[in-house]
C-alpha cells in the first residue's frame, strides 16, 4: 500500500514528517554541507584567519604517505571485520538453523555480544592482550615462548583490534543471518536433496544466493561499523599506535581536527569517507534490488 488512504488531509503528512526533517536538516545536512565548504579552506584554530585553497587539502591527503597508510589500514581492518565476521556468523547461524532442542537458549547465548559497546570490548581485549601481563599474552608466551607485544608489532596490534571489533559484532550478524536463513523455503532445499545435491552444494547454489539481500545489507552495516563506530575501541586500545599501525581513517580525522586543530584537512577527510561510503551504499542498493528477482 502506498496510496492516499486519507484523502483530504493535505497538511497532515507534512506535519508528521516535519520533526524528523527539521532534525535531519539542521543537524545532518547543513553541517555536512558546511563540512564540504570548510574542506576548501585553510583555517586557523580560532577561526580568525581563513584562506580559500581550493582542492589543496584533498591533493595533500592523496599525496600524504600517512593518509595512504591510513586508507590501507582501514581497508585491512574492514576486510577482516567483514570477511571473518560474516563467515563466522553465517556458520554459526547455519548451525542455529538446525532443528535442535534449546534453540532459544543458544540463540540468546550467541547474540548477546551485540549489546557490548565497542569501548567495553576494547577494554576487555586490551586487558587480555596487555604485553607480558595480559592473560592471552601470558598463555601464548608459556606455550610457544613467543612474546606478544602489540606495542612493538603494528600488524599484531591491527589484528588484535580487528579481532575485538569482529567479536563484538558477531551477535548482530548472527541475528540477521538467522532471520535470512529462516526465510529460505524448505521446499527448495528438499528439492535439491532429492536431486542428489550434497548439503554443501545446496548451500552454495540455493541458500547463499537467496541470502544475498541479507548479506549485502550486513556488508554495508559492518562497513559503517568498521569505519565509524569502532572509534572508542581504537581510542581505548591503541590510540592509533604503534606508529600509525592502527590509525583508522576516522581516528586520523579526529586527531587532525581536534588535536592538530586542522579543520580544513579534517573536513576534506570527512568528505572522502562519505564519498567511499556512498559508493558502497549505491552498490549495495543495486545488489539488493537486483537479487530480489530470485526470491519468491
Amino acid at each position, binding site marked *: 500500500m502506498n496510496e492516499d488512504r486519507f484523502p483530504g488531509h493535505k497538511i497532515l503528512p507534512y506535519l508528521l514528517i516535519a520533526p524528523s526533517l527539521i532534525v535531519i536538516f539542521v543537524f545532518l545536512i547543513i553541517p555536512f554541507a558546511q563540512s564540504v565548504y570548510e574542506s576548501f579552506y585553510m583555517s586557523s584554530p580560532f577561526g580568525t584567519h581563513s584562506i580559500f585553497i581550493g582542492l589543496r587539502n584533498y591533493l595533500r591527503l592523496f599525496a600524504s604517505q600517512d593518509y595512504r597508510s591510513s586508507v590501507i589500514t582501514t581497508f585491512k581492518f574492514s576486510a577482516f571485520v567483514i570477511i571473518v565476521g560474516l563467515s563466522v556468523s553465517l556458520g554459526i547461524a547455519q548451525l542455529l538453523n538446525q532443528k535442535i532442542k534449546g534453540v532459544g537458549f543458544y540463540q540468546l547465548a550467541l547474540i548477546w555480544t551485540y549489546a557490548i559497546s565497542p569501548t567495553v570490548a576494547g577494554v576487555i581485549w586490551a586487558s587480555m592482550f596487555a604485553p607480558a601481563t595480559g592473560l592471552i599474552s601470558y598463555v601464548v608466551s608459556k606455550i610457544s615462548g613467543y612474546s606478544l607485544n602489540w606495542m612493538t608489532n603494528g600488524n599484531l596490534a591491527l589484528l588484535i583490534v580487528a579481532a575485538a571489533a569482529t567479536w563484538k559484532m558477531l551477535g548482530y550478524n548472527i541475528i540477521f543471518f538467522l532471520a535470512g536463513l529462516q526465510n529460505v523455503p524448505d521446499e527448495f532445499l528438499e528439492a535439491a536433496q532429492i536431486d542428489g545435491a550434497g548439503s554443501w552444494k545446496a548451500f552454495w547454489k540455493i541458500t547463499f544466493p537467496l541470502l544475498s539481500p541479507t548479506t549485502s545489507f550486513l556488508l554495508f552495516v559492518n562497513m559503517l561499523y568498521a569505519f565509524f563506530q569502532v572509534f572508542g575501541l581504537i581510542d581505548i586500545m591503541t590510540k592509533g*599506535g604503534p606508529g600509525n599501525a592502527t590509525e583508522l581513517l576516522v581516528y586520523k580525522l579526529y586527531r587532525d581536527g581536534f588535536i592538530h586543530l586542522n579543520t580544513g584537512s579534517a573536513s576534506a577527510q570527512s568528505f572522502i569517507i562519505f564519498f567511499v561510503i556512498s559508493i558502497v551504499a549505491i552498490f549495495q542498493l543495486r545488489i539488493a534490488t537486483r537479487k530480489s528477482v530470485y526470491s519468491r
Partner: protein
Amino acid sequence: MNFKKSYFIVLLLTVFLLCSTGNVMAEPVEVTFWHAMSGSRLGVLESIIDGFNEANPDYKVVPLFTGSYAETLTKYIAAYPSGTGPNIVQVYEVGTQTMIDSGAITPVYEIPGMLGETWDWAQYVIPITNYYSVNGNLWSMPFNSSTAMLYYNKDLFKEAGLDPNKPPTTWKEMEEIGDKFLASGVIDHVYSTGWPDWIFEQALSIHNHLYSDNDNGRSGLSTEVVFNDDFGQMIFETWTRLHDKGIYIFGGSEYAPNTAFNSGQIAMLIQSTSSLAGIISAADFEVGTSFYPRFDGYPVGNSVIGGGSLWVTKGQNEEELRGVWEFFKYLSREDIAIQWHKGTGYFPVSLGALKTLLDEGWFSQDQAYLTAFLQILSGRRDTAAATGVRLGPFVAMREDFVSSLEKSLAGQLSPEDALNEAAEKMNQKLEDYLELYGQ
C-alpha cells in the same frame, strides 16, 4: 495613626530591600578556570584554590577539569565564539604560539596596567618566563613548569656492579653503562624516555642549538626547521645505535616508560621533572636523579621548559579581571608556590620561593628535587636556542617527528633520511601557517 503605620512599613521594606541587594552585591565574583591537571595534581590544585577562595571572599575561583591538554584547548576554542569560555585556561607549552596568535586573550603583562596596579616581573625564574615571553613581555602566567632530567634506579646500578652515585652524564657514558648493564644480564633494556620529540628538543637546547629559524620562532614566525644538520643527525644516529643494541627501548606512543621504570624493568628514564613525586612514591627502590645527558665537546645551552601556563581570556569586565589578577598574585606567593612545588614536583616560579626552599634545606633532604633546579639555573638564559622553540603547528609537527624517529629506529630509513623526511613534513606545515597568517 495610619500615616505613621504605613510610613513605618515602607521604612521597614526599604531596609529589607537594601539588605537584600547588599547581599547580592556581596556575592563573590566567579572566576572560571579550565585546566588539565589530573590525578594527584588535581588534589593539590584544588586545595590551593580553596585556600584562595577562603582568603578572598569577594572572589570565587571555580576550577573545572576539562580533560587532557589537547581536549582543554579544543573546548576552549569551541567556547570562544559564543563567549562561554572560562576566565582562565591552562594551555600546554606547545600551544603557546597558537594562543599568541588567537586574538582571544589578554597578554598577562598588560593586566596590572589595566587595573591600575604595578607588578614586579623580575620576581620570577628567568628561564621559565623567557619561554612565555614575546619581546621581553610575559603573555601567559607560568604555572606548571618542568624540564627533563635523568632518573635512575640506584638499586639496579648496584646489582649490575656499577657505582650508584655515578650516573652517566654524557651520551657516551650512557652507552658504556648501557653495555655493562646488558652484559650483566640484570635487565633486558637499559633506558627509555618520555615523548621522544620533547626529548629531542631538549637535546638541541642543552647544546645551544636552534630548532627552527627566526630564533626558534621568537623573533618572528619560523619558516623552517634547522635541526636536520650534522648535529641533529648525530643525535638520531646515537639513539638509533643505542636502540639497535637494545639499550634504548622506545615502545611507541602507548608505551608507559614510567611504569617500566617504576617496576624495575629499565634502569634509567629521561623524563619530565614533574614525574618526580609520582615516581618516588611508586618506586620501591632508591631513586637517583641527574642532569640530562650531554654530548661531550659541544656548546652549553639549557634544558627546555615544558608543562603549561595560564592564559587570560579577552574582554572580561573589570571585576572578573581583578579576580583573575588576585588569583595570579596568590599563586605567586612564596608559600603557595612552595606548596605547589612540594605537592607536584613542578618548579616554583618565584625566585623568592626558590630561595626559601634552599634556606630551609628542602633540597638537601632529597637531592632528587634539586637536580631539576640546578639544571635550569646553571644553564644559559640569554640565547633563543636555550629558551626553547615556539611554533604554530607544533602539535602536528611533533607527530611528524616521532613517526620519522620510529622509522629510523625500525631501520626503515637511515637516520639522515628519517631526519630529512621529518624536516620536510614539518616545514610544509610551517609554510602553511605563514600563508595563513599572511606573511
